[in-house]
């Protein structure tokens, strides 16, 4: 490790601008996380245009801070409203809400906060120690290996991020087609632009991200208002006994460590995401407990298990991103887009070309965790009040920021029409259960996949036998085939079981 670079990174993380940027990101994330229906990916996609004027380090740290803030904030609504801000906090609500109803809302929130921050910091440390050696190895990979790894990641994400592998791959296919729109970097000729000069640079990422994630989600949320309105938040009263104590902390510490381990493992695998992590950690904690019947009735270990895993997933998902340049989930895919907007290629090359930026981001992530603890601890009362904001107030404001984000990008009315098209696409994908995660990841990695595939074909002169000399590439090609067969088998088995369930349209 280069200690001079680490020192510079730490110094940059401790500047006022860094505090304001990261603190702002965490605060915004917390507020967004508290509001049910606004997810992490919605927040990041809307916030990307806000980072245009920031330096790359502040911009990325702001977005990572935002991501961390949403994970911690979503626990507040899960505990006080029984309506998780994110799907991944649903496990938190299982014990958090009963605990709040028993007159201990503050204790539940503090347990959730401490578990979140500890899970987050520990996973960030693991990320730092794993991603750098990982990236050093990845620097030795050639186009054969990278193309094989990208294909494997795509199949893996398609199979695990939604229900059916076929729907996932179909969504990925659309993402691949749209990812090739723009000037072909080999011929220099426009490809699939249909004569629109606005598409020469490719399909605008902001339109794709905001449309499929944020705007479509607002349309779905407004549709839900027909059936469910109003929220009942548990009030926080001043009770000196309602706070976390040392015995409670001691009892939840092993659970937090286990949750962090589960969250880190799940986060490092592409396609699984925080919901899997938090429920897996919760399930393991219930199984390991001597008193499993107490879960679901306000056991603080349930909150700690879910929250530590949920927050550990976020830094862990950056391991494949910084190590290989592969986004494991939507948030990481959006970060790739944000890096690209600031002219940076994320992946192992980042370690070689801009190590100071990488270390600064790591330092910023640690700072974000500390800020998250301070904000969460002292702002509990404030965030509890935000849970009372009704969804019908949030929807028009988010729609406004979606449209404004597109205008800030400078695409004008054409961009807004594209945005609307992607909002409709995202809405249909969510309605018919096609994985928009796979779609977005495929859209983002396609240029990289195509470049590596092209280089492989040129270098090998079309001779497939050359793969026999590339064991790593061969290994990932075999993994792709095995994963594909296993996921197809799983889809057929699940469908067979579901076919017996009542039909619903």
């Amino acid at each position: 490790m280069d200690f001079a670079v680490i020192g510079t990174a730490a110094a940059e993380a401790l500047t006022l601008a860094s505090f304001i940027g990261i603190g702002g990101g965490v605060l915004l994330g917390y507020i967004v996380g508290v509001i049910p229906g606004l997810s992490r990916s919605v927040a990041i996609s809307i916030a990307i245009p806000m980072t245009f004027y920031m330096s790359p380090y502040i911009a990325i740290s702001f977005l990572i801070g935002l991501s961390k803030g949403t994970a911690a904030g979503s626990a507040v609504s899960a505990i006080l409203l029984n309506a998780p801000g994110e799907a991944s906090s649903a496990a938190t609500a299982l014990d958090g809400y009963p605990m709040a109803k028993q007159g201990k809302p503050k204790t539940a929130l503090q347990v959730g906060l401490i578990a979140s921050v500890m899970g987050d910091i520990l996973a960030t440390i693991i990320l730092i120690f794993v991603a750098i050696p990982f990236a050093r190895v990845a620097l030795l990979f050639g186009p054969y290996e990278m193309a094989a790894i990208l294909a494997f990641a795509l199949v893996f994400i398609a199979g695990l991020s939604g229900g059916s592998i076929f729907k996932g791959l179909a969504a990925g296919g659309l993402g691949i087609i749209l990812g090739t729109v723009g000037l072909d970097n080999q011929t220099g000729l426009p490809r699939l632009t249909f004569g629109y000069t606005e598409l020469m640079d490719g399909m605008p990422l902001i339109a794709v991200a905001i449309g499929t994630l944020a705007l479509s989600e607002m349309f779905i949320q407004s549709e839900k208002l027909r059936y469910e309105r109003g929220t009942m938040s548990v009030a926080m009263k001043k009770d000196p006994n309602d706070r976390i104590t040392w015995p409670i902390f001691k009892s939840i510490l092993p659970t937090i460590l286990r949750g962090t381990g589960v969250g880190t493992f799940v986060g490092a695998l592409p396609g699984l995401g925080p919901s899997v992590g938090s429920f897996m950690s919760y399930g393991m904690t219930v199984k390991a407990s001597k008193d499993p019947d107490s879960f679901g009735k306000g056991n603080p270990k349930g909150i700690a298990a879910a929250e530590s895993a949920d927050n550990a997933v976020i830094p862990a998902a950056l391991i494949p991103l910084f190590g290989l340049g592969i986004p494991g989930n939507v948030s990481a895919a959006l970060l790739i887009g944000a890096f690209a907007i600031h002219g940076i290629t994320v992946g192992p090359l980042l370690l070689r070309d801009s190590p100071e930026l990488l270390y600064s981001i790591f330092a910023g992530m640690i700072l974000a965790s500390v800020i998250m603890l301070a904000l969460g601890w002292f702002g509990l009362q404030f965030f509890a009040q935000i849970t009372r904001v009704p969804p019908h107030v949030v929807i028009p404001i988010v729609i406004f920021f979606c449209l404004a984000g597109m205008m800030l990008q400078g695409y004008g009315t054409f961009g807004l029409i594209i945005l609307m098209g992607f909002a409709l696409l995202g809405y249909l994908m969510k309605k018919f259960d096609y994985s928009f995660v796979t779609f977005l990841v495929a859209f983002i990695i396609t240029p990289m996949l195509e470049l590596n595939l092209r280089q492989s074909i040129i270098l090998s002169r079309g001779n497939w036998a050359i793969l026999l000399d590339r064991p790593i590439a061969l290994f990932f090609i075999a993994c792709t085939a095995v994963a594909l067969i296993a996921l197809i088998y799983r889809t057929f088995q699940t469908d067979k079981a579901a076919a017996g369930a009542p039909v619903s349209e």
Partner: protein
Amino acid sequence: MIFVPRSDFWSGLAVASVGLLALLWMIPNYAGSNPFARMPPGLVPGIGAWLMVICGGVVAIKGLLQMMRDSLGLVSADLNWGALAWAAWPFAYVAVAIWFMSFIKITWFGAFLIAGMLILLGERRWYMILGCAVVPVALLYVLSVYLMRVGIV
């Protein structure tokens, strides 16, 4: 996961049709060509299109087989028009707003955009409408004019 054969059939058919459209018309006409390249520019979009055709086709066939087993028709007559209209109006509202924005900048028009939707969603408290409409627009103004320095958008 709830198995929904009818929507699976139609959505699979739509996906496969888009893939076919890409294979038969979009890629041959708009992907370009390079006879000297080992990898033609249409190869990668072609892979994407084939994925859509094959996977969309499988989803449609599975849905169709399940519908035949359950004796379901291809279309259902019991459509809830009220629910459909409720789902459609936000799209129409935003589409009209986009049309307006081709004449007026969003900074001038944004407050009305938010206020109108708030009223349609049932908000009646004037101070709430005013605050929710003005504050986001003011934030956008600060962001675009003072922070990004791109002027009023």
